């Protein structure tokens, strides 16, 4: 059994230690907000926080988490009142929505490390792929969330 702390709750999962965190979250624990897009850490649809850092869960073996605290989109703010969630709604950012949980987790981690990011900071930190092309609004929403 592998012990995990996810969104503030302890879980024990009976899975292969090599299983990527993404599939433990989705298939074992039913936390389907975290998405699969590429499986090679390119697109960021699977972005979650481990001890506050944005990581790509699709290439992270579950056994590497240890005592660290995992935060998923489900745990960002239960009632949607995180500044990132508020800004995302205000700017109507999502289109198909599939990449947006990862995009929002990347944005939330950036705002934790840099509460007032510049455009260059955003360029560097937000490397997630959005096939619908919501990039302009992602940028606007991050600046809005920084002001909140």
């Amino acid at each position, binding site marked *: 059994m592998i012990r995990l702390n996810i969104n503030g709750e302890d879980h024990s999962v009976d899975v292969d230690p090599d299983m990527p965190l993404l599939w433990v979250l989705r298939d074992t624990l039913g936390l389907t907000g975290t*998405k*699969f*897009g*590429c*499986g*090679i850490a*390119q*697109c960021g*649809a699977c972005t979650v926080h481990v001890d506050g850092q944005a990581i790509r869960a699709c290439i992270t073996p579950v056994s590497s988490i240890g005592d660290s605290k995992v935060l998923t989109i489900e745990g960002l703010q239960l009632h949607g009142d995180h500044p990132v969630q508020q800004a995302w709604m205000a700017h*109507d950012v999502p*289109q*198909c*929505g*599939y*990449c947006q949980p990862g995009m929002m987790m990347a944005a939330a981690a950036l705002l934790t490390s840099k509460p007032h990011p510049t455009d260059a900071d*955003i*360029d*560097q930190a*937000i*490397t*997630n*792929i*959005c*096939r*619908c*092309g*919501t*990039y*302009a*609004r*992602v*940028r606007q929403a991050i600046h809005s969330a920084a002001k909140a």
Partner: protein
Amino acid sequence: MRLAQGTRGIRVAVTEDKVELWAPTQNAEATLQLAAKAAKVDPGKVEVHVTLLGGGFGRRGAPVAQNFVPQAVAIAKAVGKPVKLLWSREEDVRCDFYRPASAAKFTAGLDESGALLGWHLRLAGPSIAHTLAPAMLEHGADVRMGEGLVDMPYGVPNILIDYAMRNTHVPVGYWRSVNHSQNAFFKESFIDEMAHAADQDPYQFRRALLAHNPLHLAVLDAAAKKAGWGETLPPGVFRGIAHNEAYGTIVTQVVEASVDDRGAVHVHRVVCAMDPGHVVNPDTIEAQIQGAIVFGLTAALYGEITIKDGRVEQGNFDDYEMLRLDAMPKVEVVLVPSGAFWGGVGEPGLPPLAPALCNALFAATGQRIRSLPLKDQKLHTA
């Protein structure tokens, strides 16, 4: 390549008296028929729950292209349990229905004043209708291959369009803006070449060709005005313009771009004027235009599928590059609804992007881009 963010995924449960599917489909009626056929049951015994798509862009619509439906039903029947099928990104890339690789050869004549006398357009490429919907062929011909050309708004006194259908073993399918996506590149690049040959400004050259067409002129002028056409740009930055009508909506785009010392292309600003007839939600239209520009720009810069030994070489985002946030240009949208019939807003924002960009690159480098993607071009500053 569509490379929708969500790869093909579907859930199927086959029981004795029912086939139930949870499917990200753009055409649920086709999904239902396909499932019924695969399960060998009456369509009345099939139930389809339509889920969120995770991006469609045309891949999840046509019955032939919904090949993941009979696949999942067959697996569910074989294992006798409910099945969730999820394609890997590599399967998604390698088992697609691709944007048709097409070619064009154009010849035109101008009089001494630079006015267009006649235009011969020759097109060759695979037919989407032939792959996905043969019933759409008329006497064996696919007139949709001429989208945006047979019905072009320019006043051309003499025009001849030839199309040679050249189908290969590579399946082709609907891609955002369908045949407009390549035809607008051909048409608007060539219009720019004609303007250059006539020693005329490319915006003014188009104005003259649209003089009889006030609806089109209004959109062209709105884009040029918003873009500040003719005004001085920062050193190294150049403009290109392109104009197209698709699915009842008229669009003009002006792209500002530069080429750096290494030959890399930078797109700084895209002005997009659009007349979709009527505007219901301008915010949604702006979002669709932003998205169409990202889609078109990604394809123009990077979009390339190569086949080797009968197999697609690319497999994932590491060998099929995507535009990311750091390369997103500033997009400015001007909506000029004329009150004419309703047009679409999801696709028409795409076709002008590649030619407007390549026309800007011609202004920047003197090099005429006659094939895409740009990553395969060696560009140098003038």
